């Protein structure tokens, strides 16, 4: 079970990586309007 001493810190790092990705996505406005982007496909202009 010694591997846990490596895996638990790794999992903490992983959470921080995911949080960083979320911050990046939110800051670029990817969650601002969940409806519009889907409908844009149908917009010809």
């Amino acid at each position: 079970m010694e591997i846990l001493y490596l895996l638990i810190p790794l999992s903490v790092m992983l959470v921080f990586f995911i949080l960083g990705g979320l911050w990046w996505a939110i800051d670029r406005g990817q969650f601002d309007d969940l409806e519009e982007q889907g409908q844009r496909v149908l917009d010809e202009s």
Partner: protein
Amino acid sequence: MHIQVHGLPLEAERPDRVAATPVARAAGAADALELIDDPQEWSAFSRPWSGDAALIESSVVVAGMQCAACAQGLEAALRAVPGVLRADVSAGSGRASVVWSKDATRPSGWMRAIERAGYTVLPANDSAAHAIRQREGRQALWRWLVAGLCMMQVMMYAYPAYVAQPGDLSLEMERLLRWASWVLTLPVMLFSCAGFFQNAWRDMVNRRVGMDLPVALGLLITFAVSTAGTFEPQGIFGREVFFDSLTMFVFFLLTGRWLELRLRSRTAGALESALNRLPEAVQRRTQDGSFALVAARRLRPGDTIRVLPGQAFAADGCIVQGETSVDQSLLTGESRPLPLGQGDDVIAGSHNLVASVQVRVLRVGDDTRFAQIVALMRAAAVAKPRLALLADRLAKPFLTAVVVSAVLAAAFWWPSDPQRALMVAVAVLIVTCPCALSLATPAAMLAAAGSLARAGVLLRNIQALEAAARVDTVVFDKTGTLTSEALRVDLLATREGISGERAWAMATALAQHSLHPVSRALALAGASAAGPQRWTAQRAVEEVGQGVRSWAAPGQADAPAVALRLGSAQFCGVAGQDPDTGHIFLSDAHGWLATFSLAQAVRPDAVSTIAALRDSGLAVYMLSGDGAGASRAVAQAIGIDRFESGRTPAQKLQFLRELQSAGHRTAVVGDGLNDAPVLAGADVSFAFGPAVPLARAQADFIVAGGQLIRVAQTLMLARRTMTVVRQNLGWALAYNLACIPLALVGWIPAWMAGLGMATSSLVVVGNALRLSRGLALPGPA
């Protein structure tokens, strides 16, 4: 805190960076505030307040308000500014309306007061207001996601401690798990909880008690105890850790706040979409006939603008070139696109759908129908219902009592068990947050107002929903409500040998030469009733108030023309007719040809509306200024058995007073033009009709479209709204009363307190959300 001013190019600075450096902004903010004192600037979000010319009503967006208590504090701060007469703040829609005197203060004066109270203020109805809403939305999502993600992982680390048998978990392993939990709780405390700490700090600095103070205290105590348990297990706080409870609590709380934010933007959606409906820039025709882009505020009556398909009209005007379809649903509730061509009027805020048109501007800015509607909706959004005021008043003493009782409970348990004492205090602080109590009324009312606005019913005064729910008698003022303005013309009889189609064709030919309302109605009806026959009239002469005489011939060539007369019995030389029956006659050189009857057309949905009102147990009366015969005909056609005819406005009011003194609560439906005193005397008033003069209408509800059924639907919705409000208040009160004793004796752990509080808020908000589904057809429930 900083101020963004309309028209200033602040986009160059990223909003989040701006917020992060308040000190650097402070010097610039003062200059920005001075700029807004220019009447050109503040007139964009202000309008004269009724009564005094020196009084101005301004509408601003206030960011950072969480609850009713914040709104109350801000109102007090605003009223303390010399020169501010009235301040209405709505935490629900994040808007404030301030009435101030031009002589005593400047907008920067009271805006500084908002700023000093710790909130960000923006002039309403500009792009900067939108930017701040977007930032609030992103921030809420970020905080919620951080809490959610970290909560899941902290649960994972906490799990072994719950299931492990003694000896399974080595000391080092346990310490590692706790250390990892602590590291992942840090972002929750730093990012997710930042809002609670900021609000609590602001409240403390301003010596207020807000909803976030108990929450922030609870969070800090829990985190401190758990940190001590992690790094110093032998300390006085014991070795227990509560990272899982803490993160879960924050997650539940933020879920509630986030959903509330979404509900708020959804119910205030109608208002917001109205405010943002006008384009910022328009194409105006220049001297040489080309088009140049100018700011919408620079438009003046008389300008010609080009509006492309997909754009909204920036001003009221008249189409001078082109044909298109226009969506006016926001303004009239009419959902079908309206075909409009040259010479037709367009209203600001409606959408051009099909083709490019040129419009000559007639009215701009505050004179437009759109501006009047928006002003009405804003006023309704900030006016507070009576029940909400009660909740506001109760919030402060309640919260003070909560903090005091938490301290007392902690003091009681401390000697025997310090750790338990702290957790009891935390549970009390968290479980009693009266969020649900203060959300109960505004959430329901906002949801209902949003539904009404989407259906084209404008709520002038949100209190009216309460009154409308108690109405038991509906009084219709006939003209313009039950009957439409249009007249219905029927062919009664013709001379032997003359076909109906021929009579129609002859009459239509003559009627086309007159602009009298009766003639126009006859020509309209004749266009379809005459079939393929077409007559043309030549040398038509109209004798005012009598009729039209003319030579007329069938459409075919070489047919001889005959002399025809269309008009009253006397004019046409028809003997033995009662002049008061409302009949129109057609005659030629040989005498009488045909008789047409004239009646006011009953609105198509009048019958179903009356039936729906009856089914709901409401008494229905009809008042009319017309003669008894005409009134009886209409009353019978739509199924009203109680009607009063030949009444003057004063007599109508008298009739209403009698009803009221008999204990009835009355709603009066009128066209808003001729019946202002009756409307003003009613418990609840509806101004009905497509042509309601909004600025003058003093009615509580304004039904802008032509659908009478909306009146019945509004009354039903008001009843449902008050039911929901009562359910909400009852639930919130019961929850708080049940949980406080349990928390005081220590039976509720912190995580359960968080779950309970979030659930009670969600129940209230979700219950209110049922009202925003729209207006149901009132059935025989």
